[in-house]
């Protein structure tokens, strides 16, 4: 018997969509089996996760709350990934954006009204994230330094930096020794939909970012360049595309969007800067899967973000009700990514068996 793998020529949209959905479904089912490791019935755990996130009004609100930063970051990652720049550093970019806006909140906020403070915080947050995305971009185009390691190292550095701030010079005087900064003044906190932790502004910005990123990639010449460079860097060189300019613009946007997510977290959810794991909640990593699952499509990312927002909420649920550590969700997400990749394979290739 002889098994061979052959490329498929053309596949219909219907086929590829079916395979895609099927692979997500299979992924979720199989990934649930990790719960067996602690003796929990996978279907029960699975049920608990989705009941927690979509089965109640509270759950849905929390899902959206988490989906917003995921969506923001994922949109930024889509821009970077389309250009094959592996930005693993969204966590760090988020933290720096959060830090910059914290400074505004605590130093400018108390003496100014919300009308000036809030926009300033967002602008500064974008700039912070963008700058932090600029660094690995430059390192790559000027020195050829692998962006995966560079962004990862920068993540750790950003985390340690925030830790330094909240345990040290920025430690709040009113926080009883907890590693938080002082609470933000009212002019620096975001208004939320009553009964939820969803801030109007970040929700709007997130949805706007979907449109902006879509338009940027599909309609502008920069988007075209990113597509070409991501698909075939040689052709991009041949065409005379300016890699340096393109990479930098790409990463400014990617980092900036992550920075905005950071502002949303500290100004909306926590109302102060706190220790890094709390602020970022690992969104930078989860967003990678969000983007990939959306097949780097800016509009599908909305659905993908809601899906993973739900899983994260579910993660909280199984932590409290089933005693699983939160990192379980990481394993779950990792398996989903693997199975989606396997699913992708079947849209491009078919297996032929010959006697």
């Amino acid at each position: 018997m002889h098994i061979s793998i052959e490329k498929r020529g053309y596949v219909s949209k219907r086929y590829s969509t079916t395979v895609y959905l099927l692979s997500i479904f299979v992924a979720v089912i199989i990934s649930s089996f990790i719960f067996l490791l602690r003796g929990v019935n996978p279907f029960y755990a699975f049920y608990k996760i989705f009941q927690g996130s979509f089965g109640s009004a509270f759950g849905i609100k929390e899902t959206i709350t988490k989906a917003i930063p995921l969506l923001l970051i994922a949109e930024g990652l889509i821009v970077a990934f389309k250009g094959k720049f592996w930005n693993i550093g969204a966590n760090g970019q988020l933290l720096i954006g959060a830090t910059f806006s914290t400074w505004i909140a605590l130093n400018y906020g108390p003496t100014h009204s919300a009308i000036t403070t809030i926009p300033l915080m967002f602008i500064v947050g974008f700039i912070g994230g963008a700058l932090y995305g600029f660094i690995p971009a430059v390192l790559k185009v000027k020195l050829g330094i692998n962006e995966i390691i560079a962004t990862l190292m920068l993540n750790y550095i950003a985390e340690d930096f925030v830790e330094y701030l909240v345990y040290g010079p920025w430690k709040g005087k009113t926080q009883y020794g907890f590693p938080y900064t002082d609470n933000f003044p009212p002019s620096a906190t975001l208004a939320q939909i009553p009964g939820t932790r969803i801030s109007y502004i970040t929700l709007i910005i997130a949805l706007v970012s979907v449109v902006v990123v879509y338009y940027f990639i599909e309609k502008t010449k920069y988007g075209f360049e990113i597509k070409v460079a991501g698909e075939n860097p040689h052709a991009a060189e041949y065409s005379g595309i300016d890699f340096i300019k393109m990479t930098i613009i790409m990463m400014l946007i990617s980092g900036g969007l992550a920075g905005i997510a950071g502002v949303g977290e500290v100004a909306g959810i926590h109302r102060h800067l706190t220790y890094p794991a709390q602020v970022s909640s690992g969104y930078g990593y989860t967003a990678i899967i969000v983007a990939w699952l959306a097949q780097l499509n800016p509009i599908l990312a909305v659905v993908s973000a809601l899906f993973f927002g739900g899983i994260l909420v579910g993660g909280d649920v199984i932590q409290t009700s089933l005693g699983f550590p939160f990192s379980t969700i990481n394993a779950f997400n990792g398996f989903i990514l693997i199975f989606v990749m396997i699913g992708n394979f079947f849209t491009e290739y078919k297996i032929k068996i010959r006697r």
Partner: protein
Amino acid sequence: MEEKVTEFKSLELKDIYKEFPGVVANNRISLKINAGEIHALLGENGAGKTTLMNIIYGIYQPDDGEIYINGKKVFIDSPRTAMKYGIGMVHQHFMLVENHTVAENVALGLSGTKFLNPTKEIAKEIERYSSEIGLHVNPDAKIWQLSAGEQQRVEILKALMRGAKLIILDEPTSVLTPQEASELFKTIKHLVKNGHSVIFITHKLEEVYELGGIVTVLRQGKVIDSTTTKDATKEELAKMMVGREILFNLEKEDIKPGEIVVKVENLEVLNDKGLKAIKNLNFEVRKGEILGIAGVSGNGQRELVEALTGLRRVEKGRILINGKEVQNKGAREIGEMGVSHIPEERIKYGIVPNLPVYENAVLRDYYKEPFSNRGILNYKKIKEFAIKLVKEFSIATPSIETKAKLLSGGNIQKLILARETTTKSTFIVAAHPTYGLDIAATEYIRKLLLQKRKEGSAILLVSEDLEEILQLSDRVAVMFMGEFMGIVDPKKVSIEEIGLMMAGSMRM
């Protein structure tokens, strides 16, 4: 060190059938080769020769049909199995590990080599073979340091040391100078005298007659006929290859070249390893003129093309287009001056395979009016342009939305040519434009270049196909080691003279 191999008496293929998505490469091919024979497999690019050989060598498996060795049916499921049966292959594109030494390359996968320090003993064996058969090569040299001819010798050594009795050579002279090719033919005759069999794939008629022996002609995946060099004439074989009378002469009008468009002065360019690939080159190209660059690949042609199109740094010297200096100006700016580039590796550089035809149509001009206005793309205009190109150049594609990678090689090349020559036709740099294309596409592209020449473009044509160069060019420059050995009139120069220039033995 040699493999224990059964004696080779004959190889027979019966009704071999192989298809790939969209094309039947081998359509019920039957063939027989006996020991001690030279068997030429003649056909145009795309006739199915390489696929068939890959089947014999176990790289592909046929969809249908059988293979018999010494009368017994066999399944060749991998190169390893093929080697056990005494079949060896020297591919057109060498399969060598560039960063390793000759000995390491020969040792790879060679059973019977020592586990510890295998290269020492292999080196000794290589020296023995070298002296016995005359295939001289330094076992400790790294592959990237060797010339194409020497690398080919390594490939032949690999096959022989694995006990190959039947050796398949796939277009072996495509990378050799005429003199190196003669050396190769001597080696082949030597091997055949020793009892080896050789299958020789080629599309060059002269070589078939120089070697003599049995000839099988393939066309579009089928065997047209199997005969010998004694029984058929060149014209008959050519007709079988192509299916019609070959036009050995394309209509090339006599055009008086106009003013100088391209002027190159004292050009010096380095290659990727930092060595001089081009040393002090001087030439011009005029309006309505085709300057052909002949020469074996690797003598600086690639670097010249890249320097002219802004893809490679110029260390010294100047390049002027219509009087303006353009060296080191960058691909985009040079393109703006009307310089188009038909790249050697069309899929790697000329298109973005996963993007649709219409986006590939504006790969070079997307940022300009009318395709783009202040950074926003105008897809309506882009698609209109793509439709125009597809129509004018008869590009076969289901639609302009089709991903470029699904087009055939010839149509991809047509798309590239269409795109380039429509918007930029002051100076056309064409690198191996018909390489790997079928006869129809080849003819189309050659006619297109002549048309552009008539319209006043200055054209630089780099090609390994001497026939193509001589047919199309107004002047021919022979490149060797980064210099022009001579710039000659194709109507007046002889093949021997060109061969000597290509090998660096003569200047004119």
